[in-house]
């Protein structure tokens, strides 16, 4: 028989008579999480991300690392152009005897590096620039935003392509090129947010009680401005890999690197002779990666801003 006195009641997030800012934030986060998890497509996205991250983290256990450089495709010249299902090469091999399965697995690491570095770098730079512009206003804002406008006038992919071309073909230059292009988006989002948040009464209140500007910025403005940046960053985790793979496909990475765009490009030569696998599998990975982050990003946006739901 169930003993009611043993039943655990859910703990109230409010302990004691006063409610701190952090308690309210924890409560809101729980609400947000519940909201996100109620959307099946977002859960699907999260599941795919979990799978891809698992693949990236455990890559050395899934496909034995190539020596000396694990990010280079291993070459098995004894097994060139083998179809999927060949023993030892479950997804087949490329024209140069590269194991497609190896490329698929280690490509997830390459993509994770690319997206993490580019997104964190651009979020930081964009937040700093956008904050300076929005917080200070005046001519500083004017100058910074005109620079942002100019950067946004050049189509993203074309801009990144031109920068990567001038820097020379290499995977690290793709990272630099993408970072140089994408930060402006965050600068603009952050500035708009800060200008909006600045108008709230609680900011005036903080000013009246004599809080310093730096305190107001870090304690009141920044935390309340960050949600759209989070949504954009989630979407960009996918977009960056998509654009990066496109640049690699065009030929701006080193040849032979375990990167999905490079593999699709190398596999292209074989399709006339019926070797469909070398392009198909790596391309599918790019698609899954971008799809997963787009699904989660959309879900996050819907959860944070109910007006866009169902769009």
């Amino acid at each position: 028989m169930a003993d009611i006195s043993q039943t655990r009641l859910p703990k109230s997030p409010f302990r004691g008579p006063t409610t701190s800012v952090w308690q309210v934030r924890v409560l809101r986060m729980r609400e947000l999480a519940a909201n996100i998890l109620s959307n099946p497509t977002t859960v699907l996205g999260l599941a795919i991300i979990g799978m891809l991250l698992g693949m990236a983290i455990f890559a050395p256990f899934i496909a034995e690392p190539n020596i000396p450089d694990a990010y280079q495709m291993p070459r098995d010249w004894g097994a060139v152009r083998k179809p999927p299902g060949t023993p030892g090469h479950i997804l087949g091999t490329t024209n140069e005897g590269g194991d497609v399965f190896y490329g698929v697995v280690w490509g997830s690491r390459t993509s994770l590096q690319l997206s993490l570095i580019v997104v964190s770098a651009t979020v930081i730079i964009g937040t700093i620039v956008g904050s300076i512009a929005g917080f200070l206003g005046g001519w500083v804002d004017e100058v910074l935003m005109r620079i942002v406008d100019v950067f946004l006038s050049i189509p993203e992919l074309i801009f990144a392509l031109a920068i990567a071309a001038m820097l020379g073909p290499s995977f690290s230059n793709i990272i630099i090129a993408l970072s140089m292009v994408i930060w402006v988006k965050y600068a603009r989002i952050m500035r708009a947010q800060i200008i909006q948040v600045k108008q709230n009464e609680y900011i005036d209140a903080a000013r009246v009680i004599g809080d310093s500007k730096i305190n107001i910025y870090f304690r009141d403005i920044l935390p309340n401005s960050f949600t759209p940046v989070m949504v954009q960053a989630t979407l960009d985790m996918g977009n960056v890999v998509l654009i990066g793979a496109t640049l690699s496909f065009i030929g701006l990475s080193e040849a032979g690197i375990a990167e999905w765009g490079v593999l699709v490009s190398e596999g292209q030569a074989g399709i006339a002779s019926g070797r469909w696998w070398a392009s198909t599998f790596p391309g599918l990975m790019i698609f899954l990666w971008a799809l997963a982050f787009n699904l989660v990003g959309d879900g996050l946006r819907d959860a944070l801003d109910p007006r866009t739901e169902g769009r």
Partner: protein
Amino acid sequence: MQLRDYIIRRLIVLPILIIGVSIVVFSLTRISGSPVGIYLSHEMSPAEVQQIEARYGLDKPLPVQYYAWAKGVLQGDLGWSGVAAAPVTEVFPNKLAATMELAFSAGFVAVSLGIWLGTFAGARRNRWPDHITRIVAVSGASLPLFWLGILLLIIFWANLGWAPIGRSDATIWASIAHPTGLYTVDALLAGNLKAFGDAVWHLALPALTLGYGATAIIARMMRSSLVEELQQDYVDAARAKGLPERLVLRRHARRNALIPTVTVIGLTFGFLLQGTITAEIIFRWPGLGRWMADSVLRGDQATIMTYVLFTSVLFLMVNLVVDVIYAHLDRRVVLGG
């Protein structure tokens, strides 16, 4: 702010932005040092290199160099393309025509397919056509264009042998005159239906590949705005007076749902423009995109500069037109700010 003032303000800002873009483009070419690099050979002595730099004014300060370059561009001197082995201005028009033909076809596919799909799904909310359209819409932003193109080639070119590759059949191409450079238009002007068929046949797969992403964006917008319109009171009123559902949809709901969709159509332009690069590589389309890709790999700076400058100016102008249409359609939009 009045609509007229808004347009004037945007027109004043436009040249400033273009100058800004040109400065960025010029600075790009100086990232990797002197632009004479690719024209030099190993046998040249440092004195000879200096001589060459002096001949092209590369020993002068950067602002002076920028001024000289910008003046050249305005006078129609875009430099020498190493990839095309000809002056950029000479090669540009034909490549542009090829790219525009592809981009417009893709735009046509995207608009007609997108509006149709969006209407089809929106009118059947939460039934299976709706779910399929949602899959198309979500995948559109995530599907790598180059991969989609290769998949289509694997199926329709390598396996079924239905689709051709390239822009035309060489003998049919040679059989007609090309006053516009647009193969479909030229074929129609020549009254040659065989050539027109050849042009459309070659366009089909690349246009579908390039248009897929834009189709997804348009279908998604059309669906959501139609769903919204169908919940309005005037739709109930139309139904109440006994109008058949088909006409309610066609005469009332769809017309209003098209307004927000029109603005999205403009926004997909950038999508199409960027997509031409990979689409042209895969389908061996002799346009600007493939020229740019070749130039990128071979350090052809004159072509890269021209391409970036041209696409940015085009992008800016299209965005301006879209914004004006949007402001005109929806006066509630707060202008300025």
